């Protein structure tokens, strides 16, 4: 009890004396805090400046893109020209020959403004059907442009923005809509509205499409040149028959790959495409020897030469069913040989046995893949001919797997490659050129390199990751 009281007393003593205890801190501390706050502010400001500058630079780049990529088309100037005709008919002050197109529009407009005040009904009528009005002489006074400028300047600017549908007003609204423009016509005179309406009617229909995403569906094909990346696993597998022992280097067969692709263009620059392609990784090894003297041929003829003679385990792996396992660049090929034949992979120029072996047998292996690409492309130039870079990942699904021994165009043995990965991935990197044929068709040529990211074989000793070079040519339809 006494103990408890002591405890409480200790706590109480300290609490009563130290709770709210004030000690004035040394004077320098506030200066330090203030200085730190300033540094923080500066840092914050720097971040804002950087962010703002980046945003401004981006905006400028976009605006420059718009400015340079879009021209004022005939449609856009037509109404100004028509007005010019009307003015002439009405015998108003002759519009001066404009130095530039835009200046011409502006001056025509200013003239027009005055004429509508005098003859609003007629003018509106003229705009509806664009046949010229009969001459109405003596109804006007000469116009001084400066006078109108002061009163109508803002209005004219507004109209000019609408007259140039691909120009200024785009900057004001990301998604220009006819409704929006129609709503904004409040404050204009009747004649102004007529002009705006007329322009809206003639606004290019696909203007929206230009800014929205676009879908493309097409086909593409390419020759596939394949090469080995560095060494292959063959030599590591010298414990069994290896195609390399034949002396001939196995060659990848150049074949065609292709399929359908669909593409989504998110805007002017970025596009993503996918699809389904079919391709085959195939290898051929020519001039293999096949002995038709039975499966002991090798042993009998090469005796104790370990390099060319199967060891005990290999002997066991050559069973009575006459299956032969051969190491290839891609993996282990398991071939069912015809009875009474034997692969003779040795390439030794041994004249004694040369006649016994036919060396014109081809050994072909083929692995078929369905490829699902996921490619991102970024447009660098987009003027008539487009140039873009592309990159992405392909998922390859193994669909077929064959090994054939062909002798004089006759398949003498078939089999499979063992241990192929059912799923492999490759990366794509390429350049693309596209060209628009007509309104909806698009031709593209994409030199692309694909590098296998994982080995074709799931057996560690066959680390085979061929790379493929191709020129994908495609035709797609935009909708």
């Amino acid at each position, binding site marked *: 009890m006494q103990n408890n009281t002591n405890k409480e007393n*200790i706590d109480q*003593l*300290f*609490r009563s004396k130290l709770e709210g205890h004030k000690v004035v801190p040394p004077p320098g501390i*506030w200066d330090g805090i*203030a200085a730190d706050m300033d540094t923080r502010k500066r840092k914050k400001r720097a971040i804002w400046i950087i962010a703002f500058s980046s945003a401004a630079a981006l905006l400028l780049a976009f605006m420059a893109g718009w400015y340079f990529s879009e021209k004022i088309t005939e449609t856009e100037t037509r109404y100004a020209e028509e007005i010019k005709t009307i003015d002439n008919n009405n015998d108003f002050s002759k519009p001066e020959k404009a130095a530039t197109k835009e200046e011409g529009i502006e001056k025509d407009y200013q003239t027009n403004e005055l004429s509508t005040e005098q003859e609003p009904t007629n003018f509106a009528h003229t705009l509806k059907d664009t046949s010229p009005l009969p001459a109405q002489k003596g109804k006007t006074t000469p116009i001084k442009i400066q006078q109108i400028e002061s009163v109508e300047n803002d209005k004219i600017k507004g109209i000019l923005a609408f007259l140039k549908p691909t120009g200024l007003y785009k900057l004001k609204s990301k998604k220009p809509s006819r409704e929006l423009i129609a709503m904004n016509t409040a404050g204009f005179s009747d004649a102004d509205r007529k002009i705006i309406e007329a322009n809206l009617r003639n606004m290019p229909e696909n203007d929206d499409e230009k800014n929205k995403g676009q879908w493309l569906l097409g086909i593409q094909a390419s020759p596939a040149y394949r090469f080995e990346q560095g060494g292959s696993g063959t030599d590591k597998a010298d414990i069994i028959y290896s195609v390399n022992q034949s002396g001939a280097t196995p060659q990848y067969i150049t074949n065609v790959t292709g399929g359908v692709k669909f593409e989504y263009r998110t805007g002017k620059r970025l596009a993503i495409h996918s699809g389904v392609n079919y391709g085959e990784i195939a290898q051929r090894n020519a001039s293999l020897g096949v002995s038709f003297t039975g499966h002991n041929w090798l042993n009998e003829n090469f005796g104790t030469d370990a390099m060319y003679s199967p060891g005990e385990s290999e002997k066991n792996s050559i069973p009575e069913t006459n299956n032969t396992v051969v190491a290839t660049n891609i993996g282990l090929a398991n071939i069912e040989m015809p009875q009474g034949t034997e692969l003779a992979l040795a390439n030794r120029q041994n004249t004694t046995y040369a006649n016994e072996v036919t060396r014109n047998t081809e050994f072909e292996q083929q692995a078929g893949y369905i490829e699902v690409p996921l490619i991102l492309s970024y447009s660098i130039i987009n003027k008539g001919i487009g140039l873009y870079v592309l990159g992405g990942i392909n998922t390859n699904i193994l669909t077929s797997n064959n090994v054939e021994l062909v002798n004089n165009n006759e398949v003498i043995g078939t089999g499979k490659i063992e241990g192929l990965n059912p799923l492999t991935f490759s990366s794509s990197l390429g350049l693309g050129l596209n060209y628009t044929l007509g309104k909806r068709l698009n031709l593209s040529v994409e030199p692309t390199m694909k590098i296998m990211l994982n080995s074709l074989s799931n057996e560690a000793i066959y680390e085979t990751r061929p790379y493929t070079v191709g020129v994908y040519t495609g035709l797609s339809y935009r909708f």
Partner: protein
Amino acid sequence: MEELEKLIEGCKLGKRDAQARLYRLYSPELFGVCLRYSRDQTEAEDTLHEGFMKIFRKIGQFSHKGSFQGWMTRIMINTALGKFRNRYKVQPVEDISAYDRETGENEAYTNLDTDVLMKLISELPPRYRMVFNMYAIDGYSHSEIAGMLEIAEGTSKSNLARARKILQNKIIEMGFIDKVYAK
């Protein structure tokens, strides 16, 4: 009270004069808190500096619901605890005997009550100092302390008991105990 709200609003807008006034008003009391939680004056000054930076940074989050001073005190305590935790990670072993040494000199305590008590607290092993401050003076419960210091509740209790024992012994040694209890 209205004036305080104006001051807070000024600080929320980042006005330097408002910040300076707030500092002048509250720094003595908050420095007192910092000293209690610190080993020495330098550390307390660091805590005060860091704590005020946090206060100015986070003042926008203060909702006027509780006591503003309480809010600032909590920030200071948390800042001190943060420093303690960082240091404790590097120096997990405490030489308690170093703190058990005799205070020795019989200083002439002019303002005995507070100065001596502050000194006694600062001489406690760091974790004991934290626990004792939080429990005995700032009114945190053991479960709160356990959460804030990332220790077990039992550890908090035993640390408190050890801290009390040390303080009590020192007070007795210094011959102040009777005087203190008589008050």
